[in-house]
């Protein structure tokens, strides 16, 4: 059923118990994403090492299950990779949702594939990722 495909168990799990929730103090950088349709807001915090690797990530969200879970799942895949690798992951994830991209290397993020059938939830699924991009740039 479409609905259960959208709200898979792992999504409900990450929605109810989001990982890496909270604030990272400076010098960690932060970035926010805003969804005008519902007023949802996600802020992502990124701590990068001098060599340009992501050391730690956290987020705060006032958001729906899809958005919260997508952001929570995202934070689990970022540790130790570079800025460029993170942005490549973002592109791969968005292609997976919008262009039937293959999704290899996305791991648990593939659980968000149900969004393909709910284009109006695309913004929810990608909001945290746009916040990540903003955090990486700033």
């Amino acid at each position, binding site marked *: *059923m*479409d*609905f259960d495909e*959208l*709200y898979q168990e792992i999504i*409900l799990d990450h*929605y*109810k118990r989001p990982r890496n929730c909270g604030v990272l103090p400076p010098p960690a950088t932060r970035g926010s994403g805003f969804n005008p*349709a*519902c*007023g*949802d*807001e996600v802020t992502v915090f990124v701590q990068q090492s001098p060599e340009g690797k992501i050391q730690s990530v956290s987020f705060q969200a*006032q*958001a*729906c*299950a*899809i958005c919260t879970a997508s952001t929570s799942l995202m934070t689990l895949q970022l540790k130790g990779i570079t800025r460029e690798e993170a942005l490549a992951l973002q592109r791969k994830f968005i292609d997976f949702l919008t262009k039937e991209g293959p999704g290899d290397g996305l791991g648990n993020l593939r659980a968000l594939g149900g969004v393909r059938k*709910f284009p109006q*939830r695309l913004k*929810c699924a990608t909001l945290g990722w746009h916040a990540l991009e903003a955090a990486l740039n700033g």
Partner: protein
Amino acid sequence: MTAPTLAERFREDFPILDQTVHGKPLAYLDNAASTQHPVEVIEEISRYYRESHANVHRGLHALSSRATELYEHARQRVAAYLNSESSESIVFTRGTTEAINLVACAWGDRLKPDDGILLTEMEHHANLIPWQMAARRTGAKLHFLAVNGDEGQVDWTRLESVLEQQPIRILALTHISNSLGCINPVAEVCRIARKHGVTTLIDAAQSAGHMPLDVQAIGCDFLAFSGHKCCGPTGIGVLYGRKELLDQMPPYQTGGEMIVSVNFEGAEWKPAPHRFEAGTPHIAGAIGLGAALDYLDSVGRKEIQENDHYFGRQAAARLREIPELRLLGPAGERAGIVSFQLGKIHAHDVVAFADQQGIALRGGHHCNQPLIRKLGLIATARASFYFYNTETELDRLVRVLHSAIAYFG
């Protein structure tokens, strides 16, 4: 009050309601966003295109005369529906939004720095942002009547003192709030405003299809509503304006049909309403709206209002029984609109979950973002009823909210 019977008699006029969504019968509870269409309206539009379409006003041939007659008859129909003194007070617009933009520009440009524009905190963005823009253009100042607490009542007893203390020129307020469901005492408010020489605009988007409306009894200067919220077509709406006021206003959009004469340098305007209808109008929309108003009168506007109030009260009472649910809007009489926060569950998730059961709700800030934020919320879920909704649909709504708590809780 006994349970109403309108749905029994009229629901079958609405072909769209007879469908399943995700395998469940559709329960359409998103009427505050847009209502559905009886066959009469759909067929009137088809008939127009099949039999009588031509451009209006300028034409002398038979089809054009017929189209013009149908279009102007629709204007008279709207005038009668609102008990307007004259059909020359009726301007066709795309909807409420355009009607308010028209007033905020064509009337609003007479505002001077520090003139006051008075709104309430519960206004729809359509009755907020155009006034922000007018204020920016003219230097006028915005003032707000506060909305207090989840019940969302404006303290109307403060109105007189605001009008005495501030140089308010216009008061623009909604008749029925699309997120609180409260019904504002517009006639009384307009009476007070008039006493202070303040121009009034009523946003009747949520009331026009839901109750008897009489612009003379209300005593407003302007009133706006949308066809698609009262069984009419998309792309059509109405601005009612007192004729003297309209005739003093400059045009809004310009082009064909609205001029008396034009040369390369300038032009001279027709009187209202044509001054405000530049270009080819939405002829089929106006005609379809006329058919919708006929239909609503045949259902009975008083009956529709009672039905609304019944569902509003019943829905509010049953939702209040859900402990996790925070309900917005008045404790007493209310329109058929209930807007709520369900525990910690985001409105998007509530709406998606209900949709899965065939129940159409709306989730978001309902174009009331400043108010929803003031109440400390991000978004609410909203159910809104019309006369074709049934008790069974209300039961299903209550059930689905319980299930959602179990699912997401």
